[in-house]
């Protein structure tokens, strides 16, 4: 049994629960789309920008760190999609679908990459909110498998891509600092600094 078979077996095991517990199906339907988790994570980043804390500058760096990391992982996934074209599980297996049929390649999961990139950036700045963000990203990744649109390995690799994307971007301290100051300058110049 190679890893692809294990991946398929794991997918079928998770997806087989669809239709068994109505409340769980509804919960997965709520979080599986492009809105619930991404917007929630973006709102946490927004909160960190405005919340007055002792380590405000560290918190504010979350915004450029998350944005640049999402940009990076998005480019990597788009590039990867040109060469690695893996079909979606519902195209290959008898999957129960809770979501529409995406047309782009399954591997790696862009949704997992983006959500883990934002969640990791939040975790670096604020451990409590970071744990909430990581839980949201994990639930989001799981829901993509449960709903029949990704294999578990798509989500695992996407998640790792998101985490390592942030760790890589974080090394460019000067870029993060300049970006943070630039956003603050724009905010001040346009008279939109609501903290003052």
């Amino acid at each position, binding site marked *: 049994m190679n890893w692809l078979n294990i991946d398929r077996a794991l997918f079928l095991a998770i997806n087989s629960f669809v239709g068994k517990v109505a409340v769980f199906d509804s919960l997965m339907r709520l979080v599986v789309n492009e809105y*619930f988790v991404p917007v929630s994570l973006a709102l946490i980043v927004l*909160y960190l920008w405005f919340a007055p804390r002792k380590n405000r500058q560290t918190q504010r760096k979350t915004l450029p760190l998350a944005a640049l990391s999402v940009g990076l992982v998005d480019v990597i996934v788009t590039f990867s999609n040109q060469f690695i074209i893996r079909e979606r599980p519902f195209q290959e297996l008898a999957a129960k679908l809770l979501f529409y049929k995406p047309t782009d390649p399954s591997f790696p999961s862009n949704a997992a990459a983006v959500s883990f990139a934002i969640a990791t950036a939040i975790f670096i700045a604020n451990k409590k909110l970071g744990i909430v963000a990581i839980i949201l990203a994990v639930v989001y990744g799981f829901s993509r498998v449960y709903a029949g649109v990704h294999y578990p390995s798509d989500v695992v690799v996407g998640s790792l891509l998101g985490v390592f994307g942030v760790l890589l971007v974080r090394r460019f301290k000067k870029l993060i600092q300049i970006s943070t100051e630039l956003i603050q300058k724009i905010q001040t110049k346009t008279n939109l600094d609501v903290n003052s």
Partner: protein
Amino acid sequence: MEFNYLLDYFLFTFVASFGAIQIALSKKYSARTLFGAFLVISAYWWFFASRNRNVHTIVEGTQLFFVFSFSTVLAIVATKIFTGAGERK
């Protein structure tokens, strides 16, 4: 159809962002915190209860990013107005 979808998304993110900013700027457990939480919950409730959001649209992630950014800027402007009105009272 797509325009309506983007409009829904804009309203959702505008109200939720406005609420999140109120929570961020409030003192712990003040009326402003409750007001912000009410706005965030209401925005989610309305957006997800009003229509099935698990349907395919031609709206892309980049468009959603720009709509979110625009609605956040407007939420900051609204906060300035809201705070200014509160201080004048």
